[in-house]
């Protein structure tokens, strides 16, 4: 029993000190962004490795998710003779929920894990220490550009996911199942609201990008500098990001799409 209480106490204290370190790290990262702004090449390089390299996985997943939505939506809507609203259903699901959430989950798996492993290995091979001894702050030089790149890339990738998903829904809906193409697009245009749907979706993906990049970079920076430590940190990045994305999605949805 005493053991249990001791462990509980130690773990609780451990979690809180880690949260404190993570917050301090975030503050340093954000202040570091100001100093890298005059050096856009640092950011461009990271936008490429964090954003552009995630392009393919996001596009292909978006296409398939859109196609599935087209199929499922058609089966349900055709029961009510409402196939023409398929476009609205596909677009609303993607822009409001699936676009931000699924692309963020994929982003955590593709880019987040890579960031953690990269930073963790830089720590394990003394590259971060070496930089400090050369009077270069590793948070400013290494972490801040990656963080900013993650926050910028995420909404763009989510938008790409939704756009390709909508095309996927259209391929299945009007290409294979015979929904009128004009109805697919015009219903969508009439019912999808810029403020309520699109902007809210973008806000969601900005939040997910912020949280996922923060988790990935902090886990790498805080990793125990051994092979095992880095592998555990990478796992934690994916698991914690997934929990945070899904939990925050519920909160954001409740705030955004309540009765208005």
């Amino acid at each position, binding site marked *: 029993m005493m053991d249990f209480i001791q462990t509980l106490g130690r773990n609780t204290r451990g979690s809180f000190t880690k949260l404190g370190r993570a917050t301090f790290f975030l503050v340093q990262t954000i202040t570091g962004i100001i100093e890298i702004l005059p050096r856009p090449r640092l950011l461009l390089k990271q936008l490429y490795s964090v954003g552009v390299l995630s392009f393919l996985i996001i596009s292909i997943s978006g296409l398939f998710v859109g196609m599935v939505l087209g199929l499922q939506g058609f089966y349900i809507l055709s029961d009510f003779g409402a196939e023409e609203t398929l476009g609205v259903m596909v677009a609303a699901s993607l822009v409001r929920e699936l676009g931000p959430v699924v692309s963020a989950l994929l982003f955590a798996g593709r880019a987040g894990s890579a960031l953690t492993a990269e930073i963790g290995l*830089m720590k394990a*091979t*003394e*590259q971060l*220490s*070496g*930089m*400090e*001894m*050369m*009077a*270069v*702050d590793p948070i400013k*030089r290494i972490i801040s550009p990656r963080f900013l790149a993650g926050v910028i890339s995420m909404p763009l990738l989510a938008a790409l996911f939704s756009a390709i998903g909508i095309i996927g829904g259209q391929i299945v809906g009007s290409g294979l199942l015979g929904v009128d193409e004009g109805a697919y697009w015009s219903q969508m245009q009439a019912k999808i609201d810029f403020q309520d749907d699109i902007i809210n979706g973008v806000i969601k993906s900005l939040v997910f990008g912020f949280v996922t990049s923060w988790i990935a970079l902090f886990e790498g920076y805080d990793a125990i500098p051994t092979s095992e430590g880095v592998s555990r940190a990478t796992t934690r990045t994916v698991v914690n990001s997934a929990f945070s994305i899904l939990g925050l999605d519920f909160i954001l949805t409740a705030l955004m799409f309540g009765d208005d």
Partner: protein
Amino acid sequence: MSDSVRSQNSLVAVRGLSFSRGDNKIFKDVFMDFERGKITAIMGPSGTGKTTLLKLIGGQLRPAQGSITVDGSNVHRLRRNELFVLRKRMGMLFQSGALLTDMNVYDNVAFPLREHTHLSESMIRTLVLMKLQAVGLRGARNLMPNELSGGMARRVALARAIALDPMMIMYDEPFTGQDPISKGVLVHLIKSLNATLGLTSIIVSHDVHETSAIADYIYVVSDGKVIGEGTPTEIKQSSSEWVQQFMDGSADGPVHFHYPAKDLQDDLMSTGKRY
């Protein structure tokens, strides 16, 4: 040379240093002086905190007690930006080289210049090629760190460490894991750079022969204390049994061959239950 002269002329002075990791006391009340323009070695078995000492001097770790002064300023009293100014004048060579793996040799050596100066690219090119020439790797400038041998990686790291023309360089186990030729090259480089650039060098090592060949003064450290100091000749004639065992590399002596354990007979006859 008398102790007072040594301490007057010291670039780095360690005074009453104590440092612990958890319950493990790494240093207990240590005094050391690193004289300007000289090569001073810190020797001792693995795990005695030699690397920790370099990190303390570089301000990456904080001592529990005591002070470390580098060129007149107390490292641990400095503010972060003052510490960074001081670090630009201190080079450090990590055991692994710590080269940035996403850049080639040229960009690695250019890194501190690009971060800390506003020199033109053509000026940087001249400086980088000169530094690489000094370590004999001008021809390897386009290689990536993973294409270098361990010895070459350390030489590139050395070129990078001297890029900003520091006043001192700290070497962390420069000879470990090197073949005899690479060791010879590094011994030669450390000695010649120290003389030609007017550096002060601190070498942390347990390679007795290489280190005593170039060091002007040696501290032998064990169990958190300085147990012997002097010129290489003085150390070799030391009366301490421990120092003798270390310098000769004998398997048994004051440092036992066996890790502390219970009696062999009892251990073999026991049930083997984990405890």
